[in-house]
């Protein structure tokens, strides 16, 4: 178990471990709402859309966190604008935003010739996580947990039944953009860990696994966070030991858990039938 002794010895590995665990927790919590509200594709689009923000931040010499976050929020607004103002179906508008922002980001990053490797932004390089990244991830994850806990009632009722939420005096538009902002923040801090391309898997796979195993929203959120942690740690192990892209190893770990849950879930009636 060389991995464990290395964790004790190397500071960069400790930072990577803590960051990936935090990303697992935060994306599991947000991801639970993302899949229940049918926003998976939207999450994918926002994660791709932060890329130009990363490049622009380098150009302007500001923290990539700021540029990427603003860019993600801008993309969310664009998607909302297109679906409000035009009869184009939402998956089409999401597809356009996703691909155009990604394309723009790739051009800008190549032009800037920054020290940041495009490959690492796209696929994640958790072993390069800095103390600065760790602290940002910690802040965002805590923010996500606290806000979701505070507004749990509003999030639950508006995700389950938007009409009823409105009659309770809840502004469901505000809730929607509130979740979009949290989603964007979580996406930006996951950049280092899993990379742009695979962030959506961290959002939806642990949450979908948890969904298969419980009939209670609160339990689903806790399970999703737990599965997020487990896949992060296993993924980190394989990434470090075999020198693989961390995003890929983390996502494969999450998917293996999903497959196990899929086979044994009572909801799928695959092996176990639901008792009536």
């Amino acid at each position, binding site marked *: 178990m060389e991995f464990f002794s290395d964790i004790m010895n190397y500071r960069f590995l400790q930072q990577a471990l803590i960051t990936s665990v935090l990303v697992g927790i935060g994306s599991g919590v947000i991801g639970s709402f993302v899949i229940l509200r049918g926003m998976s594709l939207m999450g994918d689009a926002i994660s791709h859309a932060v890329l130009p923000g990363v490049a622009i931040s380098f150009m302007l010499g500001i923290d990539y966190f700021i540029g990427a976050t603003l860019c993600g929020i801008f993309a969310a607004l664009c998607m909302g604008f297109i679906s409000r103002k035009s009869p184009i179906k939402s998956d089409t508008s999401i597809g356009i935003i996703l691909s155009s922002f990604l394309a723009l980001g790739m051009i800008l990053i190549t032009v800037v010739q920054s020290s940041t490797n495009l490959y690492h932004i796209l696929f994640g390089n958790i072993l390069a996580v800095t103390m600065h990244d760790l602290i940002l991830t910690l802040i965002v994850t805590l923010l996500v947990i606290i806000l979701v806990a505070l507004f749990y009632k509003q999030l639950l009722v508006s995700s389950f*039944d938007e009409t009823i939420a409105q*009659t*309770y005096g809840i502004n469901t538009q505000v809730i929607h953009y509130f979740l979009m902002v949290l989603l964007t923040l979580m996406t930006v801090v996951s950049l280092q860990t899993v990379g742009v391309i695979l962030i959506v898997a961290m959002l939806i796979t642990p949450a979908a696994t948890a969904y298969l195993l419980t009939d209670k929203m609160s339990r689903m959120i806790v399970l999703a966070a737990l599965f997020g942690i487990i896949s992060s740690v296993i993924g980190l192990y394989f990434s470090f030991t075999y020198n693989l892209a961390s995003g890929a190893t983390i996502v494969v770990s999450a998917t293996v858990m999903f497959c196990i849950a899929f086979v044994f879930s009572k909801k799928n009636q695959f092996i176990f039938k639901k008792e009536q």
Partner: protein
Amino acid sequence: MEISNLSVYYGKRRVLNDVSVSIRPGKVTGIIGPNGAGKSTLMKAVLGLIPMSSGTITMDSGEADPKKWRLTIAYVPQRQSIDLTFPITVFDMVMMGTYPSLGLFKRPGKAEKAQTQKWLEAVKLGDLGQRQIAALSGGQLQRAIIARALVQETDIFFLDEPFAGVDVVSEQIIMDLVRDMNRQGKTFVVVHHDLSTVKNYFDDVVLLHSDHIVYGEVGNVFTGEQLKHFYGAEINF
């Protein structure tokens, strides 16, 4: 409740045109009319779920702020709008009805749980609370949705087609409860399509067809002549 000169558009299509109606407090009122007459639209416009292009609504309570008086109405939408795959138990769904009274941050506590159980028992689902909502029959689910509105313990209840696709037993349980609560002074407004039960179920009737509206006590309004006018065919009861 006084609704004056209400008009509602869906895009460019006018669904309600200059409709005025008065709903008496403490009564059970049925809204009747052919498909597409704007019955649900009328309800949604009052609840603020769709914008009114013109019109005013005055409440008997005298409260002028729509945000405030709307919270005195509990709403049961048509059943199709429920996401049956959502990870939620019957008990937790019904408990949502306590949310408006809890304010911004407070979570449901002991009192809210007791209140939820009380209304679950009132709709005869007391022992099914821990089931996932898809594990209920259509009639049971409808009763649970009614319970979620009753838990709000408001003075006014809007029910949109509560008996559509519901078994006879559930319909009876719901109607008994409506009558029971009406005796305690609660107001009910019900969008209804089964003409054969109108005389038994309602005190007042609103007959509606887009820009044409008649309302009043069931004996005065629910007549063969009016029905012929609204449905365009001879209907006898």
